[in-house]
C-alpha cells in the first residue's frame, strides 16, 4: 500500500474509514505539511512516524480540525468533513501531555464528552463506569488529575477518549512523557483497547520501536511529507528511500554512482557492488541498503567489503559486530548464533548475497 496507490484510489475504497486527500499546511513561507494523501481502513492502527518537526502533529491537527488546512480535504466515512468545526467531527484526540482538566475529577473528566453530547444522566454513569473499568481506574474516580501518576493520567486521557466511541481516534505521542517500562506496559493497553473497541486509530510517535510494536501500518514522515506507507515488514524489508531504511531498524547504507549504462553495478567508496536483480533506479547515483542479519563474515556472497572490528556487542539472543570501513563509515552485522566472533581490531571480510540488499534512490 503506497502513497501512489492511495492517490489513485482517492477515498474510493469501500473500507476506507478516514481519507486524507491532498491535505497540506503552510505558515507563511514555512511548509509544515506538503499536500498529503493517505487512506486508513476501518479498524486499522496507523502510526505516523518521523523525526521532530516532520509535520506529524500538524497532520493530526488538520485531521481533527484544530488547525485550518491550507489545502485538501478530510473525508470520514465517505463524507467530506473539511468544513465541519472541531466539536462536531466524530474524532477523538489524545494529547501528548494528556490535557486533563485540572479542575475536574477523573470521573468528571471522563464524563465531559458525554455531557457535551447531552447524554442522559443514567447513561453517563454507566458508560463512564465502563470506560474507567476498561483502563482499570474505577477505584480512582473521585481523584483529581494532579493526584495521579503519569501513567494513571494517561489512562484517564484514554478513557476520556474511548468513552464516547469516536469512530476515529488520533493520538499525539501519548506515551512520550512516560518512562520506558511504563511505556511498554501502556503500549499493550493501547493495543488491547484498539482490539476491544475496533476503533480506527492514527497514532503519532517518533519512537520506531513503539511504531513497530503497535502498528498495522506505518506512515513514515520526513521534511513535511510522507516518505513511505506500509506494514512494518514492508518498510523493513523493502524501504523506498535511504531515510526509510535508516529510520526503521539498523541499516548499512552504501551510497555510490552507477558504473555502467546497464545500472547493475554501483561504485562506492568501499568498492564496486552488484545491485539486486530486477531493481531499477532512475538517477545516476543510488544507495544499497543491507540489513545486519544479511551480512556474513568471510567472502561468501556476491559482494564483499573489508573492515576492522571496533566493537562487539553481545545482546543475548544475538551478537552484533561493528566494523570500521574508513575514517567516517562503519557497518553493523549480526552474527548468527553459534558462530565464533572475531577479535577486536581484527581485519575481517564481510559479504552479502546480491539479492538480499535493497536499492534505493
Amino acid at each position: 500500500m503506497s502513497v501512489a496507490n492511495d492517490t489513485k484510489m482517492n477515498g474510493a475504497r469501500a473500507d476506507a474509514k478516514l481519507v486524507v486527500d491532498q491535505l497540506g499546511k503552510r505558515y507563511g513561507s514555512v511548509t509544515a505539511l506538503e499536500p498529503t494523501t493517505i487512506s486508513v481502513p476501518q479498524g486499522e492502527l496507523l502510526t505516523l512516524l518521523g523525526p521532530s518537526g516532520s509535520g506529524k502533529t500538524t497532520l493530526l491537527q488538520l485531521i481533527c480540525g484544530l488547525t485550518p488546512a491550507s489545502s485538501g480535504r478530510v473525508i470520514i466515512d465517505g463524507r467530506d468533513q473539511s468544513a465541519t468545526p472541531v466539536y462536531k467531527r466524530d474524532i477523538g484526540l489524545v494529547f501528548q501531555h494528556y490535557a486533563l482538566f485540572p479542575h475536574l475529577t477523573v470521573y468528571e473528566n471522563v464524563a465531559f464528552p458525554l455531557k457535551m453530547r447531552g447524554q442522559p444522566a443514567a447513561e453517563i454513569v454507566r458508560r463512564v463506569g465502563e470506560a474507567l473499568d476498561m483502563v482499570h481506574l474505577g477505584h480512582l474516580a473521585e481523584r483529581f488529575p494532579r493526584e495521579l501518576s503519569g501513567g494513571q493520567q494517561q489512562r484517564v486521557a484514554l478513557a476520556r477518549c474511548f468513552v464516547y466511541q469516536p469512530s476515529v481516534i488520533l493520538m499525539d505521542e501519548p506515551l512520550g512523557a512516560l518512562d520506558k517500562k511504563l511505556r511498554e506496559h501502556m503500549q499493550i493497553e493501547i493495543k488491547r483497547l484498539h482490539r476491544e473497541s475496533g476503533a480506527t486509530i492514527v497514532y503519532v510517535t517518533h519512537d520506531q520501536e513503539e511504531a513497530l510494536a503497535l502498528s498495522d501500518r506505518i506512515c513514515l514522515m520526513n521534511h513535511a511529507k510522507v516518505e513511505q506507507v506500509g506494514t512494518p515488514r514492508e518498510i523493513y524489508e523493502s524501504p523506498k528511500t535511504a531515510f526509510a531504511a535508516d529510520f526503521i531498524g539498523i541499516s548499512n547504507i552504501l551510497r555510490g554512482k552507477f558504473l555502467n549504462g546497464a545500472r547493475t553495478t554501483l561504485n562506492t567508496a568501499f568498492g564496486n557492488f552488484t545491485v539486486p536483480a530486477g531493481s531499477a533506479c532512475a538517477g545516476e547515483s543510488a544507495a544499497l541498503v543491507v540489513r545486519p542479519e544479511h551480512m556474513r563474515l568471510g567472502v561468501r556472497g556476491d559482494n564483499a567489503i573489508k573492515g576492522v572490528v571496533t566493537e562487539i556487542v553481545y545482546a543475548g539472543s544475538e551478537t552484533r559486530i561493528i566494523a570500521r570501513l574508513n575514517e567516517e563509515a562503519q557497518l553493523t552485522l549480526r552474527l548468527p548464533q553459534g558462530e565464533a566472533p572475531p577479535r577486536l581490531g581484527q581485519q575481517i571480510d564481510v559479504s552479502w548475497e546480491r539479492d538480499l540488499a535493497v536499492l534505493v534512490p
Partner: protein
Amino acid sequence: MTTTLDTMPVSRMRSRALHPYWLAAPGIVFLAIFFVYPVLKLMGLSVVGADNSFSLAAFSRIGHTDVYLRVLAVTFRISLDTAIYSLLLGYPLAYWLAGRPDRQRGKLLIFVTVPFWTSYLVKTFAWMIILGHTGVINTVGTQLGLFGQPLEILHNRTGVMIGMVHAMVPLAVMTMLPVMTSIDRRLVSAAQTLGATPVRAFWLVYFKLSLPGVTAAGLLIFISSLGFFIVPAFLGGRQDTMLAQLIITQVQEMLNWSFAGALSVLMVGTALVACLVYDKFFGLSTISGGTVRENKSWLRQVGLAILGGVAAAVDMIAKPFGRLLGGRHILSIVSWTIIAFLVLPTLLVIPLGFTSSSFLEFPPPGYSWQWFSTYFNSPVWISATVRSFGVAAATAVLATCVGGLAALALAYGRGRWSGPIFAFFLAPMIVPRIVIAVGMFYLFANLGLVASNIGLVIGHTVLAIPFTMVTVAATLKTYDTRLDQAAATLGANRLRTLFGVTMPLIKGGLVAALLIAFITSFDELTIAIFVSGGITTTLPKQMWDDMILQLNPTLAAVSVTVFVVVTSLLIIAERFRRSSSQNL
C-alpha cells in the same frame, strides 16, 4: 561559580550560620514600628473617650447619625461597583493579552503599566477636564450635535464611577494576567475535540481556570477602593462622599482622633471581612499566585452547576450570531478600545500643558511654553518638586534595601514561616492607605516628625516596601536554583556570595525596585496630606491644594511633567527588569 569555595563541609557551615530569615528582621522591625503600631494605635483610639478612659462614644455616634451610615453604604456600594465594572473591562483585555505571543505581550503591557502607575491626581485632573460642564466631551458633543444640552457627568456618581473604574482596570488586568498566561490553552482545544462548542469550552474550562485571578482582582480592587478619596473628592458630588474623605475631615478639621479611629476600624473591618469571605470561598493563597486546591465540597458542585448553566445559556444566545462573536477581530477591537479608555484621557492633558489660553479649554486655541515657565519660576512649585525628588530618592534606597533583604530572606530560607512573612510584607498594600497615613500622623505628632522630610521618607518607605519586595522576589525566582547551590555550598560565606554573586546577577531587579519605589513616593499623596505641609510640601500635595482651590493650566504643565517623569522611569525599570531575567 561555586567551585572555588565549595570545599567546606556543608553541615558545619549550616549550623554556624544565622538563619536566613534574619535578613527580614530590619523590615519586620521597621514595619512593626511605623506600620503595625500606628495602625493599631489609631484603631485603639476609637475606644478612648474625652477623659482618656474606655468609651464607645465614637461608635455610638456613627450608629446614631445616619449620615455616617450612609457614607459607609456609599463607600461599600462604590467599591463593589468599581470592582465589578473593572473586572468586566479588565477581563477581555487580560484574555487578549494572555493570548499574544510572549514578546508582543511584553510590549503591549506598557499600555497597562503606565496607566497603573500614573498618578491618581493626574488621572483625576484629566477626567475633570474631560467630563466637566464645558469639558471635552460636552464641547465636542454639542458641537457635533450629538446631544442638545451638556451631559451631567461630573460631580455625581457617574463621574466617580468613571474615575474609579479607570483607576482600577489596570490593577484588574495585572492581577488576572499571570493566572491567565499560566492556563494551558490546549485544554480549550481538548474540550472542543471532546464535543464542546467554542463558547462552552471557554466557560467550562478557560473561565473556570481563570476564576482565581478574577476573584483575587475583585478583592484587591474592592479593598483599594474602600480607601479612595481623590476620585470622589473631585469627580463626585456631595452624595458621593466616601469614608476616607470623612476620616480626613475628622482629623484635619475636627482633630477628633477617637472618631477618626472609629471610622478607620470600620474601613479596616470591612476590608477584613471581605478577605475572610474570600478566604472561605477561594483561599487567600491564590492572591499571591498559589494554586487553588479543588475540594469536594457541595460549594464546588454548586459552582460547577452555575458555570454549566452560564455556559449553556451563553451558548444558546451566541448560536444565532455564530462566527461573528467568535471572531478574533472582535476581541482585538474591544481590547484596543479598552486600552484607549485607559491611555487617552491622560494623554489629553499633554496639549493642555502647552496651551496659550489662560483657561483649560480643549482643543487649546494655541500653544506656548508660558505655563511651564510659570511652573519653573514659581518658588512654591519648584521647592515642592525638589522635595519630591529628594524624598523619592531616599525612599527608593531605603525601601529597596529593606524589601530586597526580605526577598532574599524568603528565597534562602524556605520554611513554614515564609508564607506569613510574605503576607506581612505585603500588608501595607492591603491596609487602606488612609488608615496608615492617619495612624502615622498621630505617631509622628508625638515624635515631632510631622512636616519633616524624614517623616515623609519613613511613610513612603512603608508604602513602597511591598512593591520592592515583590519586584526583587520575582527576579530571584528565576535565579532560585543557583541561589540554592550558593546557599548550600557557601555557608558562612553567604555575605560574600550576596555581594559577589547574587547582587550583580539580580542587578536588574534591584534597579527596577529602586525605580518603582521612587515612583511610589513621587506621586504619593495620602501620607503627604498629613505629614507634609507648610514649607515641606511635596509635588502631589501642592497639586491637591491647587486642585481644591481652582483648576489652572499650571496644573496641566505640572501633570505633564509628573507623567513624563513617571513614564520614563517606568520604561527604564521595565528594561532593567527584563534584561535581568534574560541574563539568567
